Structure formats: C-alpha cells, structure tokens
C-alpha cells in the first residue's frame, strides 16, 4: 500500500458529537420521518422516566415495583407499545418494523438496558402470534395489547414469552421441552380442552403479564409433536408468577420463574391445529415458531450493547477533561485544567477504541434490521408461492431450494457484471423470481443476525469494561455519569439471553458456508478494493485483505485434516468452526462501518446541517473505520494463523530433526567452499551437531509449506500500514470535539 495515499491528511476535525441528522443518514432512515419521531418518543422516555428510575435506585431491587411499572405507562403514553402493532390492530406503523424496533431498543438502552428489555419482551411475547398465529389470534392479542384510545375504559394486556425451563442450579435449556400438554376434555364435535403444564425459568415480564406464549411438547398420544400455546391469567388452574429471579442485571425488567398449570381450549395453539385420525396436529411446531421469532428479535438486542458503547463517549470525554478541575494542582487556563486526562495519549486512544467498536456494532446491527425489513415481505411472498405450488414440508422445500440455488448464483454473477454487458432479460427474470430473491436474502439474514448478536453483545461487553475503566474508580459507582457500570454488567445478559454466544457461533458455523453467502462475500472483497481505490484512508484495503485471508482459511480448513487425520471443519469441532465464526463477525462489522461512512459522505451534502460539519465527520469516521479495520485484520490474522498451523504437530528434535535440520558437520564442510556458511547456517536455521546438541527450543521450526497462506498473511500485515496514524488523528479529534455542558439525563 502506498503510505502517503492511505493517510488522511485533511485537517478538519470533528466539530460536535454526531447528532440525529448524521445518524439518520448513516443508518438510512433520513427519509423516514415516522422512525425519526419514534426515536424522539423513545428518547424522551429514556432520558426522562427511565433515567430517573435508575438515578433514584429503582434497580436496587429484584422485585417488580410500582415505581418500575411507570415504565409500562411510559411505553403506552409515548407510543412505544404500539410500534410493534399493525395499523389494523391499532398501530400506526405499516409494514416491517425491524428497524423501528431496533431504534427503540437503541434509544432505551442508551440509558438502561433493562428498560429496553422490558419493552422488547412484550413484543417477544406477541411475536409468535404475529409471525405464525392465525388471523384471529393475531387480531385478538395484538389489539388487546394496544393502549386504550381516549374514551376507552380498559387496561392494555401485557405478555411474556416462556420458552426456557428450570435445570439444576441456574441453567436453562431450549433444546428439550419439559413443558407438556395433554387432552383434558374432548367432547364430540366440540373444541378439545388441553391441560398445559409449564414451569418457566428467567421469564421476562412475568411480574405483570396477562398472557404467556409458552413452548410445550405433547404428553398425550392424541397430540402430535410440540407447539407454542397461549395461556391467559384468567384460565382455570394455576397461574403462579413464581419466584423473582435474583439477577444482578437489567433490574428494570421483571423476571421470574413461573409455574403454570392451566386448562385452555386447543384453539390457543399458535397457528392453529388439524385433527387427523383423532389426533391433534399443531400446524406449526414450537421450533419453527421460535426460529421465525428469534431471527428477528435478536437484532434489536445487538444494537443495545452498541448503544451503550456510544453512550459512553460523552461522559468519558467530560470526565477526562474535567478530571483535575477543582484540585489544588490545576488552575484556569493550564493544560491540566483545560484538557485534564486528555493530555494523555492512552486515555484518548482507548476511548477511540470504544467509540470505533460502538460504531461498528451499530452499523451491523442496523444493517441487519434493514435487511429483515426487506426480508419480511419476501418471506411472506415465498410462503404464498410455495403454498400455491403445493410444496409442503421441510424436505420438499429444501429439495426445491437446492434446485433454485443455481439460479440464485447466476443472478448474483449477473448482478456483478456491468449493466451493458449482462444478459438483461435473464437478469430481469431472476430478479423477479421471488424464490431466488428469497434464497439470496435468506443467506444474508442467516449470517447477519447471529453475527450482530454475537459480536455486538459479546465483544461489546468487553469494550464496555474498557469504557468503565476510563472513568477510573468513578466507573464502578452508582453515581457514574451515563450509568456505565450498570451498562457493563447488563451487557453480559445481552450476550446471553435470546441465544447465548455458543448458539450464535453454532448457527454461523453452518450458515457462513452457504455458497450463496460466500458468493456475495467474494464480491464484497472486490467492492472493498474499489472503495479503497477511491477512499484510501478508510481501511477498506486492509479489510479486503483480511477477508481474503479468512476465505482462504475457510477453504483450507474445510479440506484439511489435523495431525491425527481427523477432518478440521466439522460442525461439532467447535475449536475450529467457532473461531472462524468469530473472525467473520469482525469482518462484517468493519465492512458495514465503512459502508455507513460512504453513505454519510455521499448523502451528507444534501442536508445543510450535516454539510456544515461534514468534512470533520467524514475525516473522523474514516479514521475510526481504519482503526476498526486494523483491529479486525489483527483478529482475523491471529485466528486464521492459529487454526491453519495449530492443528499440525510441532516437529521434535528426535523424530523430525533428520529431515528438517542442517547437520553441523555438513555446514562445517561447506564452509571451505562458502566461507561463513557454518556460522550463518546455524544462526539461520535449525542445526544438529554430531553429538546431538541443538539450539535450546521446542524443536526444529515447522517448514513453510503453505505459501499462499503466508503470502496472504504477510500482505495483511503490510496492509496495517497507516492504521496507527489514523488512530492518532482520531485521538486528536476526540480531544478537540465540542461536547455539551452536561449530560441530558441524570
């Protein structure tokens, strides 16, 4: 790389912290005023009611209290409850709502993750009904959960989603269901009445839920398989909200371990049922419901952790700058007084790392949310087309999709050709094919969702600790501005609930090898080289090199065996596939961060407000992208090298020395022909002397057999050129940026 070319030499610095105008462009909702209004609503609640609750110590109890219940009223009053609802059920937002919900979660968790969880959990309870419920179920429960309109005298319903069940200690398992359903009564010609037994663990919203959507399995020969079923507070039987979970985090959400033993009509089975030969067959099993639900609800969780990192920036800057004010050792006008800790490079650069991680995570999280907004109508259309063609059952569907994959790959190839050179008719034909478009979007959704959940929350928790550390002892007090200590602890739950990290890695290890995804990934590498050509200071070239290394490594691992002859790439070999998944997440977040920067650069001039400070924003965000790309490249290089070399057995002096080492006497003999070779050869390589002595180390060095890997790795290392200069510039910008006089919440 050309060093001079890769440096951002412009001197315009960031003027202010990025405001709404900037974010609207970066996260692609500048033209969607309904989302902009939702943000303002969520923000007013977060920085008002929620912040006061946290400041007043409402988190210091596990119980659901009247004070905490202000949240629910708040959600209703500012319209957040109805964000999830469709207009026909009393909502105000038509169409897909993934981005809207992600933005709400972002705003709430800017102040408190538990408040965001409380909001999301109500949607989670409704999601099975929304995604897979019958039209009657959908309308009934969605409209009951809408807050009353003026003149209506009713209380809105709240829901809880009950999947996880108790295990010894504090564990849960979603793979096996202990919750059961049996036929309690079934009179001829009437609706069967089911007896449902469900014990839940870590069930959010249970302290006040009026209904529960519970996952249960059949315990009766007259019911086939599993289902999700709706249980209501007033159903006959036991609706025990259970013991409050003594969780250390997210205390603004209600969590307990309910005991439910209720009789309900079979019509409560989500998605309905069919009776065949005297057996009740749920139309949709609980696994299908959950898959459909979680792939959407995990995305808002991912942006929660990123929101916290970004929310830490302002309080940390203020703390750093004012660190020494009021003390005897600094007076007005001195650098110590004016800049405080920001005189120190380390304080600034560590904050740059926190900021860059927040940007990267938010970029991927919101990209995933937008992707699901695109995906929702495609998925619905796919279901319609399949029903029309009479294709039912997973096997028939998979067979069809396998056949269609070729067309999808062809579409991707055509899409990457110049418009004038490709077969336009064929391209149009494939573009209009719902199933082809479904396969392509699905391949991305299957990667983006687990990737953002895994990286944003897992690595986000690590970086949140870093943010806390930047506040010194203040960081671990309840008084810490921005509630950073609480946010750090909360991040651990975000990494765990709705599918812990291992679950996300497992999913990625399968979906990232989908050829449709990889075809797009290969094109992204080319695109990033193109971006790097135009915008050399963004780290795009570094990232492209890291992506090449990852791709090569994936291929190598899929075809190779370890020192004992066992295949390396196997779904159960987590030591291989999980780190590959982790590495991919770094690449995806970093790439999306660069794309957000380009969007800002392209669209910023259209907005006079953004335009006035655009150069500073673009310079700073370019440097942040470069910093993050370098860190991603570092992680990918480390992971790939460990995996490529780590499964080979290290040569040892006894077994391998004969084949791989110089003999000392041979070097001595050659010295008369090539003077100096005896000394040079010994210093350069491994040599064994006549008496068997050798250099003091584990064994002869392994032979350099993987030339391509070495070249790619070496190239990647060289691509880090300039990254630290970018970090220096970003740090300088952080030291100069104007911040408000005080945080806008307690």
């Amino acid at each position, binding site marked *: 790389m050309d060093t001079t070319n890769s440096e951002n030499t412009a001197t315009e610095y960031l*003027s*202010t912290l990025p*405001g*709404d*105008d900037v974010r609207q462009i970066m996260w692609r909702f500048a033209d969607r*005023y*309904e989302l*902009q*209004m*939702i*943000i*303002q*609503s969520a923000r*007013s609640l977060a920085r008002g009611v929620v912040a006061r609750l946290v*400041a*007043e110590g409402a988190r210091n109890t596990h119980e659901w209290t009247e004070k905490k219940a202000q949240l629910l009223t708040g959600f209703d*009053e*500012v*319209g957040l409850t*109805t*964000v999830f609802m469709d207009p026909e059920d009393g909502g*105000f937002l038509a169409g897909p709502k993934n981005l809207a919900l992600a933005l709400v979660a972002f705003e709430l968790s800017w102040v408190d993750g538990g408040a965001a969880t409380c909001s999301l959990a109500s949607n989670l309870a409704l999601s099975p009904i929304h995604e897979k419920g019958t039209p009657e179920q959908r309308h009934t429960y969605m409209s009951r959960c809408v807050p009353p309109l003026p003149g209506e005298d009713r209380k809105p319903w709240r829901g809880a989603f009950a999947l996880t069940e108790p295990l010894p200690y504090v564990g849960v398992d979603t793979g096996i269901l202990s919750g059961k359903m049996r036929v309690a009564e079934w009179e001829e010609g009437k609706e069967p009445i089911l007896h449902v037994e469900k014990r839940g663990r870590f069930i959010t919203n249970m302290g006040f839920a009026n209904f529960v959507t519970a996952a249960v399995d059949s315990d009766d020969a007259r019911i086939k398989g599993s289902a999700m079923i709706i249980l209501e507070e007033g159903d006959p039987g036991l609706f025990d909200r259970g013991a409050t979970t003594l969780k250390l985090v997210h205390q603004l959400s209600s969590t307990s371990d309910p005991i439910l033993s209720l009789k309900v009509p079979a019509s409560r089975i989500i998605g309905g049922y069919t009776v065949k030969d005297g057996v009740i067959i749920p139309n949709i099993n609980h696994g299908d419901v959950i898959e459909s639900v979680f792939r959407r609800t995990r995305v808002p969780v991912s942006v929660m952790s990123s929101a916290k990192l970004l929310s830490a920036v302002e309080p940390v800057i203020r703390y750093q700058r004012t660190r020494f004010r009021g003390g005897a050792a600094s007076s007005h006008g001195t650098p110590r007084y004016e800049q405080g800790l920001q005189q120190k490079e380390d304080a600034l650069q560590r904050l740059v790392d926190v900021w860059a991680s927040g940007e990267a995570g938010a970029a991927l999280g919101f990209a995933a949310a937008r992707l699901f907004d695109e995906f929702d109508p495609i998925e619905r259309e796919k279901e319609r087309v399949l029903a029309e063609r009479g294709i039912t059952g997973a096997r028939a569907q998979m067979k069809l999709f396998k056949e269609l994959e070729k067309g999808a790959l062809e579409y991707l190839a055509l899409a990457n050709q110049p418009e004038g050179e490709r077969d336009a008719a064929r391209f149009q034909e494939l573009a209009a094919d719902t199933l082809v478009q479904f396969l392509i979007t699905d391949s991305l959704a299957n990667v983006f969702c687990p990737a953002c959940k895994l990286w944003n929350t897992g690595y986000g928790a690590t970086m949140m600790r870093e943010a806390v550390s930047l506040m010194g002892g203040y960081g671990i007090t309840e*008084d810490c*501005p921005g509630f950073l200590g609480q946010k750090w602890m909360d991040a651990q739950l975000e990494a765990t609930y709705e599918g812990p990290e291992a679950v996300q890695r497992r999913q990625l290890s399968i979906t990232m090898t989908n050829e449709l995804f990889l075809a797009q990934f290969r094109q992204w590498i080319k695109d990033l080289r193109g971006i790097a050509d135009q915008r050399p200071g963004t780290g795009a070239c570094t990232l492209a090199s890291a992506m090449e290394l990852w791709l090569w490594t994936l291929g190598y691992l899929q075809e190779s065996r370890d020192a004992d002859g066992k295949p390396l790439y196997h779904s159960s070999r987590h030591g291989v596939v999980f780190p590959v998944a982790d590495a991919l997440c770094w690449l995806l977040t970093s790439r999306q961060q660069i794309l957000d920067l380009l969007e800002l650069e392209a669209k910023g001039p259209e*907005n*006079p*407000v953004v335009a*006035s*400070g655009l150069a500073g924003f673009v310079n700073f965000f370019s440097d942040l992208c470069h910093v993050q790309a370098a860190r991603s490249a570092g992680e990918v290089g480390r992971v790939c090298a460990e995996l490529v070399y780590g499964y080979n057995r290290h040569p040892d002096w006894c077994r391998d020395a004969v084949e791989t080492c110089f003999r000392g006497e041979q070097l001595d003999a050659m010295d008369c022909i090539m003077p100096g070779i005896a000394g040079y050869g010994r210093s350069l390589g491994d040599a064994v002397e006549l008496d068997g002595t050798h250099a003091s180390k584990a064994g002869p060095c392994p032979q350099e057999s993987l030339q391509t890997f070495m070249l790619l790795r070496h190239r990647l290392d060289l691509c880090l050129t300039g990254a630290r200069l970018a970090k220096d510039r970003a740090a300088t910008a952080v030291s100069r940026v*104007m*911040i*408000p*006089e*005080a*945080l*806008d919440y*307690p």
Partner: protein
Amino acid sequence: MNGGFHIVVCGSIVPDPLQTLAPIEGPTGPALKNELMLPAVLDPWAGHALYEAAHLAKNAPGSKVWLVSLGPKAKLQQLMMTIAQKVSFELVVLDGPAGGFTDPCEVAGALAGGIEKIPDLDRSRLLLFGGCASASRDAGVTMQMVGERLGITDQFLGVDELTVSEDGSLQVLERIEGGQYQVSVCTGAPAVLAWATGNLPEPPNNPQIGMMNMRTIMPALQKAQPAPVGAEGVSYLGVELPKQRRETRIVKDLSVDEIAREIVEWLKG
C-alpha cells in the same frame, strides 16, 4: 366563540440549553460556534404559546392552529420530529437564520409576511400567539412588531392565562412588575398574546398525532419560503458570554422542595 379561533403561533428553534454556547466571529457577523450542528429545541416561550394554542383550539370547536417558524429548514425538520407529536397544527416555514444575531424588526417583518400569505386565514378570528421573550434573542419586542404590521392593536405581553367567555370576550392574565398580575378583558379576536409560561405542562409525545401532522408538515417544509433576515445596518462592537460564569450541576438526590430552597438561597445570596 362562533366558529372558533384561527390561532397563529410564532416560534422557532434555539440551541438545546445543555449545549456549550461559544460566540465566534463568522463571515457574516457574530455567530455561535458550530451553531448549525448543535441540537435544537423549540424556544421554550414559544413552546408554551403553542401548547396553550392547542389547548384553546381543543376547547373552542372550529379552531385551527398554525405554527409559523423562521429558521433553517433542515433544523426545523428535525424539531418537527418532536413537536409534531405533541399537538396538532399546520406549519408555515420561513427558511432563514434563527440565531441570536438577527434584528427583531426584520424577523417581525418576515413573520408578518408569512402570516399574511396563509390561505384561508380569517383575520377577524385571529389570535396571534408567541413567546413574550426568546431564549436566543431576548429583545422582547418581536410579537408587538408582528402585531403592529398585521394591524392588531390589542396586545398582551407576559400572558399566563387566557379565558374565553361565552360571549367570545377574552380575559387575560398578564405578568406585571412585583410578581403581580394585570387582568384585562378584550372583546375578542383579533389580538396578540405574547406568552410567559402559561399553566400547561409539555404534552407527552404521541406518534399518532405526529403521523397526522406530518401529512401537512413535510409538504410545508418542501415549500419553505426563503427569509434572509439579518441585522441590516446593525454593527456589533463585541459579543461575549455573560460575565457570570455558567455552572452546571447535576442533582440527582434532592427533592423538588430542597432544590427550590437552594435556588432561593442562591438568589438571596
């Protein structure tokens, strides 16, 4: 009131009060550092006027509320994402500067011009609302000048309460010196009411109101009329922050009473 009122509220943006406000010398005169980039809020006095207007319109069937805003169009659009969720109104946008370095006379001229162009505005039913002051340009004269230009001579300043009688007459409580109120009765519209704080709390956000308002607000923003107001003939010898240094404190653990007591002690001191 037969047929209700036509209430025009004049109000625009000011920088969010938590922001750092640093005067600088710009190419066209004094300005605030990074002013365009700073988050903005509705001028608090204008806000009170708007909420009072919406409240009055709700209780006087047939009434209609307009908000006439002079400010940078893009900033006003951001502001609308909050304000439009609170009360129903139609927006009239005058695209111009909203900083503290414009001359009230020019601002009043632009506002009056904008109001005159509102279609279907019944001047006989017109109540002209606005703030009695502004958080960014506190000359306290703008509303009077707008009223004069529109030919409205019944003017009330520092209003805290408006009561409409059955016969359509207006009873107005105005703040006067010494912490006292002056009670006036006016036979009816048209009138100018420059509000102090009024008595109403800020309405909560309601996205459904926002969605309805946006049907007219977005077109209004697109049709914004340029209003290049400034301070023609005025030269600034110097601009500086008030001598009293601003000390911002975050108070989390005091009751409202305790905070009030502390403020009173500070004032006395």
